[in-house]
């Protein structure tokens, strides 16, 4: 038996409380009666039935304790695996992780899984409802229960593997939660990794094969301004000699031979000088999985954010942003949120307060009207007394002693105050689709521009706010849409999909392929680069099933049966029984043998 909410079992402490109350209840209230003669006779009769009386009274207590225990158990959401409880329905779970692209079975593990699923579809009865769940980056139900075999086969064939790891257990949970005509379905998993749920049937695909792959690729600027590319390569299963080549726009920039030994990652460093663009790293030579033989990195300006500065010219801000590494710094005097989506960071410099669309902002001497702060006027002659030492924006920044002539006085209702005098002077907030750092003063009205820590503060803020176009597998960016209602998302495979703006933002689907994603509108384009496949997918060994039973002769299916409804039913019966017993013990009107 497993519990969905085991913490609910703490409510069992109510049981001793009920017993205690039951014991305390036995205090007797004195009452005068004309005679106890008949009562004495009655109690003499009762003494003869004392064991039964005790049983009745204890039965009431027992029922109360049982009722509490059953309700608490129901709150804990227990479930058990029962054989033969599953209905006719079947859910097919297809693993679509990166390792399913492996070619140790021809043509690939995914195709083998699709063929096995199709074969099972053939074997199942024509009236059995079947659903299909894809175990990708996130579990997805791609076909609801249907008996339309052609539609199911088509749905299975359309499944494509990603470069990410799969949420297999989540997919199994989703599949187990599906009900056909109120009954749970038998779950069949097709993949190269055994699910941890012992109630499902696992159809293992793949034989296991040696592999080598790129498990990390990163760039950084060195002191000369050159881009250094670091590539980590690992071997799984057998030693091999491979070469790592870096190319850009079809032109090979460098290559290096590496000898790969299982368990010993190799790191290859490449000096890419001042090159700018999207570099492709290839691990040359054949192996069973091609997905991890390729990495993509943004190099130079390509890997840096585009910054949009809005407001009147400001020599201090302009000087700082000229010094910062950025793909592009655009300055605009007019406040036009429609074009802000193209920039990774928007700097609002002393503009009138306005409602901020979702995105990343550095506010200088202004505030957003939709931020959770209360403006209390201005504060003059502030001296910085405290600086946060833990927040990334103030890392290595010590502005104590710096003075500010005039600042907005705010009372934050959330976020983090990073720098403060008598009032907050720098405040950071993240939420509601916003990531904001607010300088509550004009730097020109302070001595911060001459303070050596000021550029570091701005650089840290840019890093925290804009990051870099380099994204992680599974990221699902949220971009301010401005006045645009639709945009096109181009994936690394060349596919495209329309994305509609919702509530002023484009919410992109999770990115699960290695390469460059592009979001395009008529006015601008944003890019995100996914570097490598999930390194956990590079090992192609097939682990023996630890929990799930491998497919074999057809057996009555195990089904995860949730006990909560049954327990609540039992609780209702217990309460009814307790009520009946209680009513039975109530004083009843009997025939009065007193009237002549």
């Amino acid at each position, binding site marked *: 038996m497993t519990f969905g909410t085991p913490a609910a079992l703490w409510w069992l402490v109510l049981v001793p409380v009920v017993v205690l109350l039951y014991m305390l*209840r*036995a*205090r*007797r*209230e*004195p*009452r*005068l*009666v*004309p*005679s*106890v*003669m*008949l*009562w*004495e*006779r*009655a*109690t*003499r*009769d*009762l003494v003869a*039935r004392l064991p039964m*009386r005790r049983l*009745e*009274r204890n039965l009431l207590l027992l029922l109360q304790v049982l009722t509490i225990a059953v309700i608490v158990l129901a709150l804990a959401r227990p479930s058990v695996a029962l054989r033969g409880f599953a209905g006719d329905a079947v859910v097919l779970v297809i693993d679509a992780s990166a390792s399913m692209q492996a070619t140790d079975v021809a043509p690939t593990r995914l195709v083998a899984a699709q063929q096995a699923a199709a074969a099972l579809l053939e074997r199942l009865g024509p009236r059995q409802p079947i659903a299909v769940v894809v175990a990708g980056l996130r579990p997805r139900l791609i076909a609801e229960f249907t008996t339309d075999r052609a539609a199911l086969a088509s749905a299975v064939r359309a499944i494509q593997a990603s470069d990410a790891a799969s949420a297999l257990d989540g997919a199994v949970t989703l599949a187990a939660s599906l009900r056909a005509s109120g009954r749970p379905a038998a779950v069949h998993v097709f993949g190269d990794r055994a699910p941890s749920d012992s109630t499902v049937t696992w159809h293992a695909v793949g034989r296991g094969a040696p592999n080598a792959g790129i498990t990390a690729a990163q760039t950084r600027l060195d002191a000369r301004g050159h881009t250094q590319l670091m590539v980590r390569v690992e071997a799984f299963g057998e030693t091999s000699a491979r070469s790592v080549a870096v190319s850009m726009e079809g032109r090979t920039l460098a290559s290096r031979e590496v000898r790969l030994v299982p368990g010993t990652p190799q790191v290859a460093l490449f000096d890419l000088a001042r090159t700018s663009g999207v570099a492709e790293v290839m691990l040359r030579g054949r192996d069973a999985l091609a997905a991890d033989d390729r990495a993509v990195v943004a190099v130079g300006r390509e890997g840096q954010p585009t910054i949009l500065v809005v407001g009147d010219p400001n020599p201090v801000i302009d000087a700082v942003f000229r010094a910062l590494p950025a793909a592009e710094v655009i300055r605009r005097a007019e406040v036009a949120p429609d074009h802000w989506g193209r920039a990774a960071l928007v700097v609002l410099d002393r503009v009138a307060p306005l409602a901020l669309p979702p995105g990343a902002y550095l506010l200088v001497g202004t505030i957003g009207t939709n931020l959770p702060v209360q403006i209390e006027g201005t504060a003059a002659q502030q001296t910085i007394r405290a600086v946060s030492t833990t927040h990334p924006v103030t890392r290595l920044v010590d502005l104590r002693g710096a003075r500010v002539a005039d600042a907005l006085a705010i009372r934050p209702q959330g976020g983090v105050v990073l720098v403060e005098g008598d009032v907050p002077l720098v405040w950071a907030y993240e939420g509601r689709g916003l990531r904001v750092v607010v300088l509550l003063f004009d730097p020109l009205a302070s001595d911060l521009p001459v303070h050596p820590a000021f550029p570091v503060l701005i650089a840290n803020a840019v890093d925290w706010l804009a990051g870099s176009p380099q994204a992680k597998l599974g990221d699902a960016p949220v971009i301010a849409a401005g006045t645009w209602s639709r945009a096109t998302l181009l994936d690394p495979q060349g596919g495209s999909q329309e994305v509609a703006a919702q509530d002023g933002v484009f919410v992109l689907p999770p990115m699960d392929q290695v390469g460059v994603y592009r979001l395009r509108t008529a006015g601008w384009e944003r890019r995100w680069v996914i570097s490598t496949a999930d390194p956990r997918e590079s090992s192609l060994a097939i682990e023996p099933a630890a929990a799930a039973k491998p497919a074999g002769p057809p057996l009555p299916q195990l089904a995860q049966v949730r006990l909560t409804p049954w327990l609540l039913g039992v609780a209702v019966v217990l309460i009814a029984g307790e009520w009946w017993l209680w009513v*039975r*013990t*109530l*004083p*009843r*009107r*009997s*025939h*009065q*043998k*007193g*009237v*002549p």
Partner: protein
Amino acid sequence: MTQADLLLDPEFLSRLERLTLLSRRVYRSGLRGERRSGTLGRGVEFADYRSYHPGDDFRYVDWNIYSRLDRLFVKLFSEDEDITVHLFVDVSRSMGWGQPSKLDYAVRVAAALGYIGLANLDRVGAVAFSDRPQKTLAPRRGRVGAHTLFRFLGGLAPDGRSNLAAALKEYSLRTRRRGVLVVISDLMFPDGIAAGLRLARYYRFEPFLVHLLSDEELQPIVDGDLRLVDVETGAAVEVTADGTTMDAYAHARDRYFNEIEQFCLRHQIEYLRAATSIPFEDLILRYLRAGGLIA
């Protein structure tokens, strides 16, 4: 008008005057009364003949029969005698229970029966008893005694513990008059009723039991865990007043009533049980008539 006069209203009293107390037996009081008895004697109503015996009064010889049959027969007449009614009213503390209290009800019953007796020139006495006769009103005759009787009954108050046998024994030794003994009580005697009623029979009383009960005794309204304390004795019983207990109480109550009924049947004692909730007039005019105490 005194409190005693309020026991019964005049209209009800006039209805009572049409009733008569019944007795199965004739008691030799030595005085001729208004009641026709089974004794043949010097009354005015012819009853029978018997053969003449020497010493018989010649005035009762039927000479017409002698002329026809040539034998002497004496005419016999029913003799009118009076009876004595002893109203034995329980005034123990338990009689103060109920709404109206059992004692109030008992006093009115005793007043009504006493008035019927007095109106028929019977002798009526009253005794207030608990574990002994507390107050006694000597038997008296005629309507003039009604006011005294009512005042006596109106002054009764519940007090003391009850013991029918002890009270009857003491009373029997005090009085020589025998007659109808109307015991009006809740019969909640810890020592039972058998000894007392046997004693009454032994002393040649003709007992008539009027058993009064309040509704609370017939159907107690109790709930939960209680310690019931006897108002007379202070004895306590711990009960959990649930359905089972109330069933047991009802069973014990019915068994007790049955015991009383069986005892009275065996000993030819008239018995009437009444709840104080039934109208008093109904008890007198309907149930006591049906019970054979009055006619």
